[in-house]
């Protein structure tokens, strides 16, 4: 079997398991980045072109204008409805990625916004496009990852997960994070995007010698030096790169364990 087919089939199986176990109580988080766009495409593959559950965009209001335009265009092209969520109370109070406040900002505008939408709609599971090779902490994730009511990730007590058996027993006030593309590497994602001819935000392509390798909120993303102006260029660049993907992401670096703290608080 082709290597990209093998990755794709594994993801499709997991997406279908999640749908089977949580029908009517499941949603997908879409951030318009390359990973969650790939995930959204895999959902269409799993369900023969359909997206049989809501697509959520957690909007911090600090995203790139290109991302908002891409969001509205793809929703039209692929014909799906989006639930846009903002933590409006915190935004009205002036919450933003100010100095030494990034952990707070991510927690309020992303994690707590997600909490609000889960409560409002009664979702019990959320599909997320995280990958193991993004960060050491994410490398320790399971495909099906339970979170308690306070959104805490009890990483010392993760359930065993083997042989395609995914634990999804619900305790009270719990929800599951489901990670169908956990096994894709950054390079796999780009090779897959190329093969499937997926649309992608053009922030990833080089302009004036710089490009974004990972996208999120404008103040917390910096571009990296690169001349990769096409998907083929990006693939060639990554085949030799030794820089990590999230090198341009501020929230990972405020202190050594920020990512662990963020994730244990329920960050994506």
């Amino acid at each position, binding site marked *: 079997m082709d290597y990209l087919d093998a990755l794709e089939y594994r993801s499709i199986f997991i997406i279908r398991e999640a749908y089977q176990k949580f029908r009517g109580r499941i949603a997908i988080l879409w951030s318009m980045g390359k990973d969650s766009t790939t995930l959204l495409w895999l959902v269409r593959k799993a369900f023969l072109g359909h997206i049989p559950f809501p697509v959520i965009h957690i909007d911090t209001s600090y995203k790139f204008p290109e991302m908002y335009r891409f969001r509205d265009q793809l929703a039209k092209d692929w014909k799906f409805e989006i639930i846009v969520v903002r933590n409006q109370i915190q935004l009205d109070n002036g919450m933003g990625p100010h100095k030494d406040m990034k952990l707070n900002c991510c927690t309020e505008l992303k994690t707590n916004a997600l909490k609000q939408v889960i409560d409002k709609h009664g979702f019990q599971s959320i599909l997320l496009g995280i990958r193991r090779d993004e960060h050491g902490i994410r*490398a320790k994730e399971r495909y099906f990852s339970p979170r308690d009511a306070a959104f805490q990730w009890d990483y010392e007590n993760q359930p065993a997960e083997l042989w395609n058996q995914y634990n999804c027993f619900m305790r009270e006030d719990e929800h599951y994070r489901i990670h169908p593309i956990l096994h894709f590497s950054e390079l796999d994602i780009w090779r897959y995007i190329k093969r499937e001819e997926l649309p992608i935000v053009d922030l990833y392509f080089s302009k004036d010698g710089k490009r974004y390798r990972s996208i999120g909120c404008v103040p917390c993303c910096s571009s990296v030096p690169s001349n990769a102006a096409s998907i083929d260029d990006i693939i060639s660049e990554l085949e030799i790169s030794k820089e990590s993907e999230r090198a341009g992401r501020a929230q990972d670096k405020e202190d050594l364990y920020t990512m662990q703290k963020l994730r244990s608080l329920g960050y994506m």
Partner: protein
Amino acid sequence: MSQYQHVFPVVITGHVDHGKSTFIGRLLYDTGNLQSERYHEMMRSSENAGRINEFAFVLDVFEEERERGITIDTSQIFFKTKKRSYLIIDAPGHREFIRNMVTGASYAEAAILIIDAAEGIMEQTRRHIWLLNTVGIRDICVVLNKMDIIEYNEKKYQNLLAEVSSLFNEFKLIPAAIIPISASLGINIASRSNIMSWYKGPCFLEVLENLEKKPIEERPFRMPVQDIYNFNGENLIAGKIESGFVSAGMKLQLLPQKKSVSVSAIRKFPVDIESAFYGAAIALKLHVTTDLNIVRGNVLIGDEEPLCGRQFPATIFWFHDEYKNSGHAIIRCTTQAVNCSIMLNQVFDPAEPDAPLSSDKICVGEVAYCIITTDSDIIIDHSSFIPEMGRFVIECDGIPKGAGIFR
């Protein structure tokens, strides 16, 4: 065919503190696979913890792991050589984290067993060989770590070599190699070192590059039903092919109903496919003449009927809490989930296989030969014939607590 190769997944196992995480960190570094940001983060956190170049910190990223100097959870990291790409799976060596070790090992094609040359074979060394053998991993490369601590002593190496060989012999296994190394100093990892001139064998990387993926053997078609969809008024059967292949027009049988069906189409978005093989997650449109009452857990098969029944002999291993003989549990085998009870016949600790334990219960880290009795029919194959159809997870109180194979 794609121009890219499959990633080769390898799990690193061994007793606690024998140096698994350090070994991986070193391997990444010596093969030029450590991303500069992760390298600098490792240096910075090593300094914070008052240590020098703690390579284990590349994988042990939890604050608790670094403070306690142990691996708690399994981790995965990609790494590539000129020949191919690897997925390195780090597995914890503590008995209390055995479920994380099993989780990690279940994704692997081959294993590295690391043994501290000064300490020798320990409890988890034995337990891990047993578990690897049970989950079907037969390619195991042994590395004898911390040779620098025993001053590269050839005699000690020879003694350990004999012990390891005889341990493997108990399982009718032959190690792919037994290599003296030092993970912290990078000796015999990515290149051969002269420091042990008496050792004429390959370095670790050479052995790794020659490990092969198990060939996929020709087996009859099996597809457990995962779900049933109805999009645009068309009924589709979703499932993953656990063995064999299927093509449009093929005649199949649905079990346990024993009803004949034929495949009218294999639906795929955006274009349908004509045939599909082992590992594919597909959606079948079936041509049927009678009502099938098809549900999740039914199995579509080709030739050679599998076993269908309510009582099967099995080998199980336990990784969470304990199980009292004949208690209530759920067995999950492919997409089947059925109530069951397990009669424990012979319980033992694989670290001490000659000292049988009481059959009243099975605890974390122990294994048992047993008889599993289910409330309704299940469809299986022997694990030696079709591994995917012959292995299962045992769940109690909603938590996966054990796993096993049908003998």
